[in-house]
Every structure is written in structure tokens, then in C-alpha cells.
């Protein structure tokens, strides 16, 4: 039987992250970023993570051609763990026979979980009840599990403060104190603990406004090398998710082929028999993890070489195999949320590439 396994990653931006829409749109900045259509909250598309992870994994395995648009230059794609993991097109007989293999991992969009905003008490991290639940966190108020969202103009805080609070330009009323508990695997992470007493829960309808009015907006100008002064008309603005934004994403393993080529990478060797940087790859999820880890150094999205796009993985991903309970997550006594109800059939038999 094929193996289905799901990992939920908690990510944090260590640079501003700019995943551009790739063109000029009507907006308040020249280069705008990708947003979730329904909510207008910026996100990191799964395709970006997939592409970056594939490219970095291919470099690590010393077969950069495995990340190219076509895999024609890969000598033996069946034996390449990067091709196997992310999918490939195999051509035989002078390119007359084309077989496409879908990848065996699905990487989903990374959604904003905790968004940093400056307030009159310093930086706070804004989120909503739904987002926390979806990611496996527990929210309690006065010892009981919180069932309803705070009203639109109010906010629940995880520290003691009764007065009003501003989230950027917006003032909200304090609605009391809440306790947020992370899933077991993340509870003791230093990064989580650094923000756990600075969380603000707002109504979902407010969240998108708070996020969108507090994105990092930068202005850049190109310098003309001949004159050493600013280039005419080259001033442009762009927006980005700021540093210290927490996001969650899911990676689902759908190993329908059960033929991961682990001869070399499982023994910690690259294609050229050099030592594989990091830990050996025993399966497709290790390939994804190695690729995602590189994002911590080289980033995802636009303007990576000038200090944009780095994301770090916080703690270990929460794991769940199909039909089993999540390994290291807290159980919700009353509400399990869409994430706790077992793997949905998110099984895309799409073409590779």
C-alpha cells in the first residue's frame, strides 16, 4: 500500500520575504506580493517553496540539472532522488516516448500564523483563533477552551493588559486574557517562547486589514553608474512580509511508486560520490527538508541576494501517517478543527513539472 504521511512545518521569516506577483498591479506599491484571493492576506505559495526546495536539493545532490525546466540532461532520472521527489519527464527513443512522473510530495501554501505589528507596548504578534486552531494550537480563556472569536473591535491578549492597544494605526479594545499553547513539539522552542507572551488574537475580518497595513514597504532607487546619482524614474517601492512573521505549511507524502532511489543519498553521498551536506536522505521527505533548510541561508522569493527571503524551520515538523493520530500534537477536547480530522484526499495525480 502506498504510504501517506503528512508533515506540518512551522516557519519563521528571518528576513523580509517578497514573493512578487510578477507584474505591476493596481496597488499602493510598484511591486506587490502574492495574496490569498479570498482573504487578501499575503502568503507564500506552495509552488515557490516547491521550486526553491527542488533547486536547493538538486544543488546539494550535485545534479543542478535535476531542477531545470526539462530533465533531459539528467543522466538517469529514475535514480535521482530529487527528480523522484519532485517529479520529472523522461524521454526515451530520441525523445519520441515521453513519460511524465508526478512528484511524490505535495507542498502546500504557507499561511501567515503570527504577524508582527508595532504597538504602544512594542512589537506584538497578531493572529486569529481559526489560524491557531488550524495549526494545532490550543487557545484557552479562564481555563476553558475558547470557542468564539473576539468581536471585531476587540482583541484578546496573552499578557496582562486591560487597556486599549494599537496595532499600527488601528486601536482595538482589550477583551481579556487568553492562553495559547503550542503543540508539544513546538512548545519548548526558543523562538516560540520569545513571542508567546506577546500574542494578540483579533477577529478574522480584522486580520487582513492589520496585516495589509503593516507590511514592510521599502523604497529603492537605482544609482546611475555614470553620474553616481539616482536614476530618473528608477525609484520603486515594494512590499514584503516583515521579519519574525510565523507561517505554517503542510507537506504531504504520497509515495505511490514506493521506489525512492536511496542507494547513494541514503548513505550520505551525492551523485558524484562526494559527501552529501547535512544528514543522509532516506526518503522523499528528507529531500524536501534538506531543500527547505537551505532556504534558511539562501531564501525564497525575490531579491534573495540582497537579504530577502530567508525562512527558518522552527522545531521539528509535526508528523502524521494516514489513519494514525498526529504524533506529537495536543488533543483538542472539543474542537479538532479541519486539520485534526485526518488526511483529506489531497492526492493530485497531476503531471510532473
Amino acid at each position, binding site marked *: 500500500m502506498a504510504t501517506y504521511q503528512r508533515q506540518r512545518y512551522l516557519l*519563521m521569516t*528571518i*528576513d523580509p520575504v517578497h514573493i512578487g506577483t510578477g507584474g505591476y498591479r493596481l496597488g499602493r506599491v510598484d511591486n506587490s506580493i502574492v495574496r490569498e484571493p479570498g482573504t487578501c492576506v499575503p502568503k507564500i505559495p506552495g509552488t515557490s517553496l516547491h521550486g526553491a526546495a527542488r533547486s536547493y536539493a538538486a544543488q546539494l545532490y*550535485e*545534479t*543542478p*540539472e535535476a531542477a531545470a525546466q526539462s530533465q533531459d540532461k539528467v543522466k538517469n532520472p529514475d535514480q535521482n532522488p530529487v527528480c523522484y521527489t519532485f517529479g520529472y519527464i523522461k524521454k526515451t527513443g530520441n525523445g519520441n516516448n515521453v513519460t511524465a512522473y508526478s512528484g511524490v510530495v505535495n507542498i502546500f501554501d504557507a499561511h501567515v500564523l503570527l504577524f508582527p505589528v*508595532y*504597538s*504602544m*507596548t*512594542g*512589537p506584538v504578534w497578531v493572529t486569529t483563533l481559526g489560524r491557531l486552531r488550524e495549526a494545532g494550537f490550543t487557545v484557552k480563556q479562564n481555563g476553558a477552551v475558547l470557542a468564539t472569536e473576539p468581536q471585531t*473591535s476587540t482583541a484578546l491578549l496573552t499578557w496582562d493588559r486591560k*487597556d*486599549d492597544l*494599537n496595532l499600527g*494605526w*488601528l*486601536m482595538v*479594545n482589550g477583551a481579556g486574557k487568553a492562553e495559547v499553547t503550542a503543540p*508539544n*513539539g513546538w*512548545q*519548548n*522552542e*526558543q*523562538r516560540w517562547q*520569545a*513571542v508567546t507572551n506577546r500574542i494578540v488574537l483579533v477577529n478574522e475580518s480584522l486580520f487582513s486589514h492589520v496585516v495589509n497595513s503593516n507590511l*514592510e*514597504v*521599502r*523604497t529603492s532607487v537605482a*544609482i546611475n*553608474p*555614470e553620474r553616481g546619482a539616482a536614476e530618473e524614474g*528608477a525609484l520603486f517601492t515594494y512590499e514584503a512580509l*516583515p*521579519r*519574525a512573521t510565523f507561517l505554517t505549511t503542510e507537506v504531504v507524502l504520497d509515495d505511490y511508486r514506493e521506489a525512492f532511489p536511496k542507494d547513494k543519498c541514503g*548513505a*550520505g*553521498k551525492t551523485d558524484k560520490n*562526494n*559527501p*552529501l*551536506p*547535512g544528514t*543522509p536522505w532516506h526518503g522523499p521527505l528528507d529531500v524536501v527538508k534538506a531543500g527547505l*533548510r537551505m532556504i534558511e*541561508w*539562501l531564501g525564497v522569493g525575490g531579491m*534573495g*541576494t*540582497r*537579504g*530577502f527571503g530567508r525562512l*527558518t524551520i522552527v522545531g521539528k515538523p509535526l508528523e502524521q501517517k494516514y489513519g494514525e493520530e498526529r504524533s*506529537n500534537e495536543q488533543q483538542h477536547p472539543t474542537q479538532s478543527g479541519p486539520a485534526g480530522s485526518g488526511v483529506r484526499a489531497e492526492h493530485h495525480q497531476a503531471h510532473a513539472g
Partner: protein
Amino acid sequence: MTHDFYARFPFPLVAMTVQSLAVPWLAGETNRLPSDWPDLALLEDPVARFDILAQAMITKHLERARSGTRDQNGGYRFWVEQRAQAFFQQRRAWMQRLGLEPVLPDLTHVPPGSWALHVSFTLRQPYLSRDDQMFHLLDNPLKKERVFKVPYVAASGWKGALRSAMRQLRGHTTLDDEAKDTQMIRLFGNVRAAESDFVAGRLTFFPTFFDKARLEVINPHDRTTGVGARGPILLECVPQGAQGDFFVLYVPFGSAEQSDDDRRAEIADDLHAVVEGVRAMLTTYGFGAKTSSGFGTVEEQLAGEGKLVLHAKLAGETAPTVVPSASQPPNLPRYLESPTRLHPDLRREDGTLKSEAEYQRFIESQGRKYGKSDKQLYDKAKKWWEQGGQTQAQQTPTPAPEPAPPEPSPVTTFTFWTLSKLGDVAQRVASQLREGGAS
């Protein structure tokens, strides 16, 4: 109730007397709240207070709010000189807990041929920049980190400064000149006007955070009368003597069809060129704003030990430094990899502490003798583990049998204390690289 922050604290709309009492409170000069405006107490954070105080721009209190009175330092100047350092340090400690302060990358995780440079510098001349925030008491506030409000050099600023310094070193005056320089393109990516052949540079830059700020002042004079034309202009700066850390990472992405020798020669050339460029940028050309007036340069003598870390086999290195010592963030005990995680040498696959015998076997497997210092290190690690490190590490033991660990990649660290020494080190390493890594 109003839902606008600025409308909630309408500085220009309160009575004149309340305004003049509010200024010293908002600037942190006094703890006495204006009794007619108790709501101000909600503003716990100094940056938020200055946000409100910025409304003084349209009142008579502007100069008072910026720099105090004729005989007494006050307002923003008082805060910057007396309080800002403690505030920035506290914020940077928080950023460190979140892992936001850059450290030298662990090169064992990046492809071979990569190298990284860490230069810990002292400013010889103040550094200037301009913030994107438009609403500020000053006309020229320093660029601050968006969330934590710490002054910094953005990575994009470093990249631009280095590219421009190298451009001038090489005498390029037009984009076309630069577009023909394959090494510049390899390092920094295609030039801006390029229509096609987009390429990303091999260099990656990191931000540099500071914990000091001061106000510089310039006073433009009227040409015809020779007296001050429009009063002093305040420029916020990071002062002379402040320390910062510059990092750059080089990852040789690119075609795999190249021969190993060519590739190594290319990496050596790049190392040499970048180090020359970094020296020129830091000491001659400067970084930040107003570099042509001499701002933004650093001392030849470094503030701390500089490091060049290289992931490659080197000729003449008998035993490559296997332990990636550079992977440890500063100020961590040697037995830790991160504040909650043991060093790879000391932990098992599942994250728990090795037994002493296991650790001894590990040391000996590397051809070293298990000496007194190794034992001391193990004892310290054990103590940490037993005193709560165990619960912090939170590793659920996984009994999965692991194959023998792969041969670690060679990562070598070179250190230096002055910028000219860095030049020497780079030259030596580059020539060793060119000679090849036949070991």
C-alpha cells in the same frame, strides 16, 4: 471610541500648557505624567511615544521636542543620547532569541566551494541612512528594523555599496562596461538594464544591527549673506566607535559541466576579488549615505576576531578542520549547537546526550586522543543536560537504526584581526584553492 491611533492621542489639539508638559514625558525626560492627560500612560513603548510626539511638527514645540532647550538637552536628542543604547540592546537580545541576528552559516549544509566572511568592525566615521518611515520628528532618521526598531544596515544596502565599490575599483563607468565583466555578473547578478539572460549573483548579504545612535548636525549657510540659512538640520547617525558585524556568503551555484579545476580557480578568483572589494568599501568608498563627505567608513583594526570559513579541500592542509566550529552562534558554550540543542558531536541521532564511552569512541574515531579537555567538555555537557537541557531539547527518542554517519565535509576556518590581514589570508587561501584539493 476612536479607532485611529494618532487621533486617540491628538497632541496638537490639547491645550498649549498640556503640550509643553507632555513633551518631556513623551521624550522620557521625566516620569511625571501631565495631570490633564493621564491617557498618555498607555504608551509604554518609547518608539510609540515618539510616534505621538512627531505630531509636534505642526506646533510651536517642534524644536523643544527634537533637541530640548538652549541650555538643556531634551526631547529626542536626550533619548538618543541617554536612553537609546539600553533600548537597542534589549531589543537585540530579543532578536537573538528569535534567531534574527545573523551568524556565520554552517557551511557543512551548503554546497562545496562555498565560503563565508565575517568582519567585526568599528566605525571610524559615523554611518548615515534614511528610514522609510515618513512620519518622524527628524527629517533624516536612521533606517530602523521594521518590527524591532533597531538601527541597521539593510542587506540590500551592503550589496549596493559593495557593487558600487567594486565597480569603481575596476573603473566601470557605464552599465555596458559592467555587463561585459563576467566576474561582476557572476557575483552580483545581471545589470539592471538587462533585457534577458537574467542571472542571480553568487553573493548573499545579511543585515548589520547597531546598538548606538547619535544626532549629527549640519547648518547650511546662505551664499550671499554667509549666515545660517534655515537653521540646523539634524541627522540621526550611528556614531564613530560603534561596532557592527558584516557577513557575506558565497555559494557557487552554476553549471555542473565545468571541470573541477576551473571551478576551483573561479572560486579562488571570486574570493580574492570580493575581499579586495570589501576592504575598499569599508575603508575607502564607505557605505550608507553621504559617503562623499567621508561618512560610513571603518577602522583598519577590527573590533573582534574576523573569520573566513571555506567549504572545500585545500592543498597543503594536512588535516582539514572537520569540526565546523564556525557553525556555533557566538556566546554559546562549546557543547551546544543552539541554546536548546547539544553539539552534533555530543548528541545521538535522536538528540539525547551520548554516553561518555560513545563520545570517547567518537573522538578517537577522528584520530584524536580523548584528552582532559574533551572530558571536561563532556562533563559540562552532562551537567547542562541533567539541569534541564534534557527537557529543553524535547527530543522524542526514535529507535530507528541509523547507518554509519557519512564522512563529514571539510570546512576550514581562518581568522584575522585587521583588514590588511584579511587580504593576506584571502590571497593564501585563493592560491591553495587554485593548486587544487588533491588530498
